[in-house]
């Protein structure tokens, strides 16, 4: 069993690759938002207060287009509904006695990446571990945004276009290693990709927004995976935690 300090440092170490991966992606965000006409301080504040990739990209585009508050909230919310699944999943992995205040604090730092890393840990997650895990990514996301926002004018257009792929390259980097180790995971990922592609390319489904596409594909693929490949119980022991 680790002390709080050891758990924090271990989490911090696990968060560093995420933080580094965030820099090119958030740089892209900072660059695009300032080029669109938002002041740099507000763009940095978006990253600090939202700490999300797809949702804040979409929301910021709507702001740049002068959309109404309801549309901005709905779109952002729908893209972010997936966090409810992650939050529910994390609720099963944290130390059972964790206080409400602690839950409300670390929940701010749940992202696709911190969630993926946390859920692949062995054993129970302590508050200290979670705070260590989210600290680096929060810093990296804000720092990258600030860099992109401040030097946006000095960047060639072609490099800016190339940076659009950063977010997705990061997703690929997270998902491939576990696929190498588990056939059911490969099946679930492929099924999910096939479903979003069908919804994307078949014209009948074009009324479905990108946020809902992700939700439909996620729920269907995970449900089929759970039915076909139930995960064997591995008892999480109280002393086995990080």
């Amino acid at each position: 069993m680790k002390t709080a300090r050891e758990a924090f440092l271990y989490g911090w170490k696990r968060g560093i690759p995420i933080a580094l991966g965030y820099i090119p992606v958030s740089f892209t965000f900072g660059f695009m938002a300032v080029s669109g006409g938002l002041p740099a301080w507000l763009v940095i504040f978006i990253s600090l207060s939202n700490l999300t990739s797809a949702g804040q990209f979409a929301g910021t585009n709507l702001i740049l287009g002068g959309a109404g508050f309801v549309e901005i909230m709905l779109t952002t919310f729908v893209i972010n509904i997936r966090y409810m699944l992650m939050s529910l999943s994390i609720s099963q992995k944290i130390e059972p006695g964790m206080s409400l205040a602690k839950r409300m604090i670390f929940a701010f730092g749940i992202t696709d990446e911190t969630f993926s890393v946390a859920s692949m840990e062995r054993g129970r997650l302590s508050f200290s571990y979670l705070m260590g895990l989210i600290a680096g990514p929060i810093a990296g996301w804000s720092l990258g945004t600030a860099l992109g926002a401040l030097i946006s004018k000095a960047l060639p257009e072609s490099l800016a276009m190339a940076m659009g792929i950063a977010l997705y390259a990061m997703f690929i980097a997270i998902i491939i290693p576990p696929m190498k180790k588990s056939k059911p995971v490969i099946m679930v990922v492929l099924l999910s990709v096939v479903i979003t592609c069908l919804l994307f390319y078949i014209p009948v489904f074009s009324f479905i927004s990108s946020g809902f596409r992700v939700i439909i594909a996620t729920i269907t693929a995970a449900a089929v995976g759970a039915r076909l490949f139930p995960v064997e119980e591995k008892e999480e022991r109280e002393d086995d935690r990080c």
Partner: protein
Amino acid sequence: MIDVKYALIAVLLMALVTYIPRVLPVSIVRRQIKSKYIKSFLHYVPFAVLGALTFPEVFYSTGNIITAVAGVVVALILAGREKSLAVVATASILTVFILELFL
């Protein structure tokens, strides 16, 4: 120029609807879920989400499908070799950037 007050309110609303789905389940659900099916479902969620977020959008992320496909291939190869997030992201940006110079 965009009205800063409008933009700031919009950003705060975005922050709120981003925080709510993160905080609600983990604050409310305090019991261990017993169902093996629900446990397995939750186990597969992160993999399914990342797959659905990436495809097919990634092919339209650079403004040119050919450069995007090349970037994906590089990302897949490096991820297969378990390179870090930063290495994979930077290498695919550079691949797209260099290809754009020739296309």
